[in-house]
């Protein structure tokens, strides 16, 4: 994957096409980039905006900070402004860009100053750059500004240069998203001059640090950073261009970087360094974290910090992987080998060499095992961020008293037993008894009670058992060693016990997650449509997370939820807004996320491969944001559901496509039928009628009669066809109500025969009906229509004068009507297809028809819950069989003689 291809491969070409098409509709982000406040970014942005407006673009100002500078304010005048939103926060009124108003206004270009700005609490996004991404997603071009110190990957470098740490940062991916970065550059001397003249506005915080910040040396360094960052972007453009144009020569060697991330604050530097290296090498990079098997779960604070580091890495463009293993080094190396990593970045150890001796050194492991992978060791300067506090400061011992009371009781009991047995057993045996008590405590109550037990045990042993008894004085110096060993054994035992306990807990938790996921997958497999899948998802999410509310949204976020918990939950508009955002952007939103973090619901997209198929939002029972593991499990859940949703959608799409194709086919058949079968009789009628009108006087009597007969026959044919088309249309649209009445079977046959008296004239027709009157609940008009069609077909397609038979059999449950003819018979293929619409079997020449009659018959019979079949008749001919179920009980006939 990392090798440069010889020539553009299909994937590359596809990528190019995708890039080109996404380019076509993608909104443009243009960033004005400066190395320090006061270089004139806003001024430049406004100039460009006015230029765009002159070109006829619809330009509005989302937010522009003029800081009272007259020239800038003058430029901003005359541009339409989206009114700012006023937010009250702790008694202060803050003004923020009104994102919703801007989105509603839908300009072509919007100006959003100060990309790194932090929004007031209660805004949709915590950061302004997130607002900008929303604007871009809606297809609005954005002009914005930023200074170099606000760029995430350069943040610590800038801090090193200026000694001022800036808290408001923008992820590099936002910059990478920019279509154009324009460096607004002036000479540092000029900037210093402007500063002196008071032309540079500085916020309070910066003003305090201005002494540090605005030094010529600093400015030079910052300027260089800004230039380099701009160059990097230009470089990326060039690479993209080359890729687009298939220029291969300068493709970089396939580098791949892995950075080891942990909870230590030093990891922040590692991540940023990795990002810089990756950008320099134009290499993909991975941030890896190793979850040690059997190690006590880290403290919440560590977890949070680790989470911050990983999300920073992600926002800087890294792929984040979580590995598991018993040793960090081994896990890292295994992953690195498997994924062709060429460079590993690792922090310089900050702890004492002694610890390495005892526990083994990560650095050592990695370096020794790295083989041909380069290892970069980077200083882990935790610096100002209060990092050292975490280094192995033991967690405060739990204050619960019960374990200690129990531990003391256990030791006391042991002492009682030991004193009793003092004469029977030797001291070494009693030592083992105490160790047993310590071990039990360790296993039951963990480390601290075990240590307490060890201490107590030593004291009790000394006081009660070691001569001289009932004093802490020790006669023999060797006993001191015994005490030390007892305590040490207690320590080790407790450590072991704790580790075992943790492993067990981990295993249980893991197994629980795996089981939950497996159960979900299994149940989803049998879900046929997204509603069923949604219900399955809700059920399993409820079991696994025990939240107070769950909502599964379909792809159409504005529609009704697919499923909810509780069942009758009415999802509020706020939840809907979160879901809509998630669906639109394909990213999680709500409680604890980047978007609407203060909401009470957390929402993740349900997706498999491409677009979100839906969204899942849950309201945690404790009102707290979900932890890392829970979020991962929820992700896994939604991914599985995404697969099910996608499967349902694809099969539905396939069904619709097949239906459409079928409809298309039907339509063309219908058209050809209408054009042919309607025109033929019309042609005959018109011909006959015009002949009669103009040639009346010259025609012989029998010729006139012939023409008149033709008109009558063709009109009848038209009438039949139109009737059939109408019936078919009604059947298809479901507008054919079956009005069931109890009718004797022979009346149905009789009525049909009466109607076809003329057509069947000259044929022997035999009807075999049982003597007893059979009542069947059907729509008499429709069923008689079926019989008429069948008999009419028989009359049309069998030789004149050949016999027809109708046989009626009845059982308790159904009535069977057989229509037997002595025609030419039908081939197997025809018998199979004959009930299809527009299917005419093998008609003899000169016999017209649209091929609708039997399809209508089938439709009607099936609407009655019956079946229509066809088979060959022994001795030649065909049998059509109508089977109608007898539904319900025939009504009673207890009428009184009137």
């Amino acid at each position, binding site marked *: 994957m990392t090798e440069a291809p010889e020539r553009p491969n299909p994937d590359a070409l596809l990528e190019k096409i995708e890039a080109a098409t996404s380019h076509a509709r993608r909104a443009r982000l243009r960033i004005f980039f400066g190395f320090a406040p006061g270089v004139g970014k806003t001024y430049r942005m406004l100039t460009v905006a006015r230029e765009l407006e002159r070109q006829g673009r619809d330009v509005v100002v989302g937010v522009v900070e003029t800081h009272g500078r007259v020239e800038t304010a003058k430029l901003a005048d005359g541009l339409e402004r989206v009114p700012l939103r006023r937010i009250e926060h702790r008694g202060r009124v803050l003004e923020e860009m009104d994102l919703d108003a801007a989105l509603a206004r839908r300009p072509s270009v919007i100006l959003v100053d100060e990309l790194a700005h932090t929004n007031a609490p209660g805004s949709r996004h915590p950061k302004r750059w997130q607002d900008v991404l929303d604007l871009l997603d809606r297809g609005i071009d954005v002009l914005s500004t930023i200074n170099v110190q606000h760029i995430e990957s350069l943040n610590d470098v800038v801090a090193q240069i200026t000694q001022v740490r800036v808290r408001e940062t923008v992820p590099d991916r936002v910059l990478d998203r920019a279509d154009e970065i324009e460096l607004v550059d002036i000479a540092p001397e000029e900037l210093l001059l402007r500063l002196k003249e008071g032309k540079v506005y500085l916020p309070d915080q910066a003003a305090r640090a201005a002494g540090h910040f605005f030094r010529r040396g600093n400015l030079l360094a910052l300027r260089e950073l800004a230039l380099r960052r701009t160059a990097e972007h230009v470089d990326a453009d060039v690479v993209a261009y080359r890729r687009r144009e298939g220029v291969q020569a300068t493709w970089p060697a396939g580098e791949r970087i892995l950075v080891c991330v942990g909870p230590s604050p030093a990891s922040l530097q590692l991540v940023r360094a990795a990002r810089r290296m990756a950008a320099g090498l134009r290499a993909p990079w991975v941030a890896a974290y190793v979850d040690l098997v059997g190690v006590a779960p880290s403290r919440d604070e560590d977890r949070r910090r680790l989470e911050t580091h990983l999300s920073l890495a992600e926002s800087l463009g890294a792929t984040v992987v979580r590995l598991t293993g018993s040793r960090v080094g081994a896990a890292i190396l295994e992953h690195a080998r498997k994924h062709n990593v060429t460079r590993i970045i690792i922090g310089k150890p900050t702890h004492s060499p002694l610890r390495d001796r005892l526990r083994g050194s990560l650095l050592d492991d990695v370096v020794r095992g790295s083989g041909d992978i380069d290892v970069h060791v980077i200083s882990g300067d935790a610096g100002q961020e209060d990092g050292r506090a975490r280094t192995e400061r033991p967690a405060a011992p739990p204050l619960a008293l019960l374990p200690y009371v129990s531990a003391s009781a256990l030791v006391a009991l042991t002492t009682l037993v030991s004193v009793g047995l003092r004469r029977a057993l030797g001291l070494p045996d009693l030592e083992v008894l105490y160790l047993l008590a310590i071990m039990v405590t360790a296993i039951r109550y963990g480390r601290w009670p075990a240590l307490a037990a060890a201490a107590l045990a030593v004291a009790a042993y000394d006081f009660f058992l070691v001569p001289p008894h009932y004093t802490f004085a020790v006669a023999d110096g060797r006993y001191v060693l015994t005490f030390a060993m007892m305590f040490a054994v207690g320590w080790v035992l407790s450590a072991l016990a704790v580790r075992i306990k943790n492993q067990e807990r981990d295993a249980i938790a893991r197994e629980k997650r795996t089981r939950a996921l497996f159960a979900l997958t299994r149940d989803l497999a049998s879900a046929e449509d997204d509603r069923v899948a949604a219900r399955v998802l809700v059920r399993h999410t409820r079991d696994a997370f025990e939240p107070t509310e769950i909502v599964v949204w379909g792809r159409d976020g504005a529609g009704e939820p697919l499923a909810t918990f509780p069942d009758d939950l009415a999802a509020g508009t706020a939840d809907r807004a979160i879901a809509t955002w998630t669906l639109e952007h394909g990213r999680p939103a709500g409680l604890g996320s980047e978007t609407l973090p203060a909401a009470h619901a957390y929402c993740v997209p349900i997706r498999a491969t491409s677009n979100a198929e839906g969204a899942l939002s849950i309201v945690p029972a404790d009102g707290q944001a979900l932890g890392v593991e829970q979020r991962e499990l929820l992700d896994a859940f939604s991914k599985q559901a995404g697969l099910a949703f996608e499967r349902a959608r694809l099969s539905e799409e396939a069904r619709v496509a097949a239906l459409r194709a079928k409809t298309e086919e039907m339509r063309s058949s219908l058209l050809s039928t209408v054009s042919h079968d309607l025109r033929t009789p019309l042609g005959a009628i018109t011909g006959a009628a015009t002949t009669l009108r103009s040639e009346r006087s010259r025609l012989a009597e029998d010729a006139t009669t012939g023409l008149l007969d033709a008109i*009558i026959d063709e009109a009848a044919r038209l009438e039949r066809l139109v009737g059939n088309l109408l019936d078919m249309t009604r059947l298809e649209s479901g507008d054919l109500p079956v009005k069931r*009445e109890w009718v004797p079977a022979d009346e149905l046959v009789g009525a049909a025969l009466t109607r076809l008296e003329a057509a069947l004239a000259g044929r022997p027709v035999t009807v075999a009906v049982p003597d007893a009157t059979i009542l069947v609940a059907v729509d008499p008009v429709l069923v008689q229509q079926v019989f008429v069609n069948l008999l009419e077909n028989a009359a049309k397609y069998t030789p004149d004068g050949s016999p027809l038979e109708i046989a009626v059999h009845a059982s308790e449950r159904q009535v069977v009507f057989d229509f037997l003819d002595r025609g030419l018979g039908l081939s197997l293929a025809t018998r199979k297809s004959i009930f299809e619409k527009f299917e005419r079997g093998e008609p003899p020449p000169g016999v017209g028809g649209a091929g609708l009659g039997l399809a209508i018959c089938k439709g009607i019979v099936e609407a009655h819950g019956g079946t229509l079949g066809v088979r060959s008749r022994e001795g030649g001919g065909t049998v059509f069989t109508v089977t109608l179920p007898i539904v319900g009980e025939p*009504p009673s006939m207890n009428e009184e003689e009137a």
Partner: protein
Amino acid sequence: MTDGLLVLIVDDEPQMRRFLRASLGAQGYRLLEAGTAEEAIRLATSHNPDIILLDLGLPDGDGIDLTRRMREWSKTPIVVLSARGRESDKVEALDAGADDYVTKPFGLNELLARMRVALRHGSGTAAEGPARIELGEVTIDLVKRQVVRNDEEVHLTPIEYKLLVLLAKNAGRVLTHRAILVEVWGPSYASQTHYVRVHMAELRKKIEQDAARPVLLLTEPGVGYRLREPTSAR
């Protein structure tokens, strides 16, 4: 034979009126034409026609409604012209007081036959009736309450006899299930259509040569029954 009887044609389609004008005119009928229900009422009151041919699908109102309004003051026979597949409309029109119906498209002979039957029953002569009714092979002696088929007495239950006589007195004319039920069983049985059907099936077995291929007691699917006049058979 039509004696210049006055026919009111109510149909909104000019082509239909043209056809009826030509064919009925040739038969010696005098004609009035109306394209709307209002016009039909006006012409019916002013000219008092002998028979009305009424299309059910009128633009300004429903033919069934027109039938009801006509029946409030007039006994003029009404023959309904209706399309196939609208059986419930026909039933409604008949129950509202129409005398018979023809299904479009129809041949002239069929229409003339229906008109003749309607005119005959409308004149009130059939109400008195003869003492004997001859129906081809079957003869009904109304005085003796006796039915004879091919010189053999046929034993009918009282219901079957009532049914046969009702149909015979209205020979050639369609009777709806409801009309038969009300007449033979009484108004409380008006919706028990299976009574008629079952007894009709029994009656056929006794009267018809082949009950499955009746020639006398015909079914009008979805509407009711009609006893075919031996003379009007085609």
